């Protein structure tokens, strides 16, 4: 087994809300993986007993994919989204969960070079796929030109949507939909920014495209 080949078991994410006095969900999941990779189905982070019971019998599958250049082999509960695989298991928390329904774009990543909503992508379907997330964009210490442009243009405030905006912008530039600010706006409309930084986001995409 090569050094970069990790195999582990990924439980599905749940939408359980509310404060918890126990360890955080991420800690629990990470611990579960470390102690031996059993499907973690305890009630700590599952919404209710019914779902927990169902999760115990939930089918899982093995899938090999490349994430930011590293080959990963994981066994995932079939329900696991690519977003949850990245965030909850691979510790790549740059991709954000906003709406979890394909409406906000905060989870945007590239799969085989195409920008997609990772929240609507089932990880189990990604056999052989190449995934690039915001963490994989820079080359060493050198930021991707669009990352640098977001800094130069001050194209964010709270920053929550920014990884998705940048990944979507990379896709937009690759697709060649950057002929005018209007075209950029249209082709970036799948990424919502509640801080309203659109003018600067459009400028960052426009300038990066022009430099290519």
């Amino acid at each position, binding site marked *: 087994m090569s050094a970069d080949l990790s195999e582990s078991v990924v439980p599905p994410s749940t939408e359980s809300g509310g404060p918890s006095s126990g360890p955080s969900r991420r800690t629990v999941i990470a611990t579960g993986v470390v102690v031996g990779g059993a499907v973690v189905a305890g009630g700590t982070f599952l919404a209710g007993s019914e779902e927990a019971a169902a999760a115990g019998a939930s089918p899982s599958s093995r899938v090999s994919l490349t994430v930011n250049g590293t080959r990963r082999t994981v066994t995932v509960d*079939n329900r696991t989204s690519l977003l949850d695989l990245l965030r909850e298991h691979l510790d790549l928390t740059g991709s954000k969960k906003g709406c979890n329904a394909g409406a906000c774009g905060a989870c945007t990543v590239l799969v085989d070079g195409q920008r997609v*909503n990772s929240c609507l992508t089932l990880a*189990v379907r990604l056999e052989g796929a190449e995934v690039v997330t915001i963490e994989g964009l820079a080359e060493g210490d050198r930021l991707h030109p669009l990352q640098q442009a977001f800094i130069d243009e001050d194209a964010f405030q709270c920053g929550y949507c920014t990884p998705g905006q940048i990944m979507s912008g990379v896709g937009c530039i690759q697709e060649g939909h950057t002929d005018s600010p209007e075209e950029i706006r249209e082709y970036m409309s799948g990424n919502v920014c509640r801080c309203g930084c659109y003018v600067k986001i459009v400028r960052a995409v426009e300038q990066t495209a022009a430099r290519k």
Partner: protein
Amino acid sequence: MHPFSYTRVSNVREALDAGSRGGRYIAGGTTLVDLMRETVETPETIVDISALPLGDITATAGGGIRIGALVPMAVATADPKLNSLFPVAAQALRGASAQLRNMATIGGNIMQRTRCTYFRDVTADCNKREPGSGCAALGGYNRGHAILGGSDQCVAVHASDFAVALSALEASVHLQAPDGRNRRLPFADFLLRPGSTPHREQAIRQGELITSVEIPAYPRPLKSAYLKLRDRQSYSFGLASAAVALHVRGGVIREAKVAAGGVATVPWKLSAVERALVGERPSDRLWAEAARHAADGARPLQHNRFKVELLKRTVERQLRTVGEME
């Protein structure tokens, strides 16, 4: 999300076998995964058909076009043939975000389910989701709902823009059944009005696979375009939309193909508008007169009365736009 088993198939035969055993096909997954997460959809088995060879766009004899079921929306909307032959169809594929268009396919687009908030909310009454439970939209907040084609069981709007263009252009759907038999269904018969069975949305049988959609040939030149009005400028479901195609020769409209979206339970073919146009000479007066029929038979609900006028104006504006195209 309920647990499900997952199967990846590599050819149509395998897909049909899995489909006939009750498997649910998944292509782009943008609707299905979303609804599974809401537990609106609870398939026990999903059958991944993304590797099937249904990804071609081919011109047909005489100037029609056939689009494979697995062509991504992003590919179809950029296709030179589709843009040249039927701009209205290419434009109608631009409603979703770029991310969704990269994922979603043509077959999935016409299988997409309503965006009715009560349908998506498993705590609400919905005859479409749970037959016999009632319709929360009828007495609820129904601004986005249908003014045409509804019943006392369901007034949910069909969400697809592309389907509006297919309806206008009288396309057909190619299907393959588990026994291997192919059939071709007029698009008008593919999507079902709710009536007393709102849970039945497509005339598709268990295990049947959409292989392609086909837009027939038309006399040329054919001018066409799509107009969609929505609450925000981009990436939103329509409040009213119009797909219009006109063939004008010798200063007279010989063919008029018109359908509306965002206002009805299925893409709404505007036959009365078409009849008012054919044989006439284009003029502002004609567009206004024809569009007056656009909302014939409308039954607005408490919060969507505005759609009656909006629909007429949308159709009039788009008739004029297409009519004045070179």
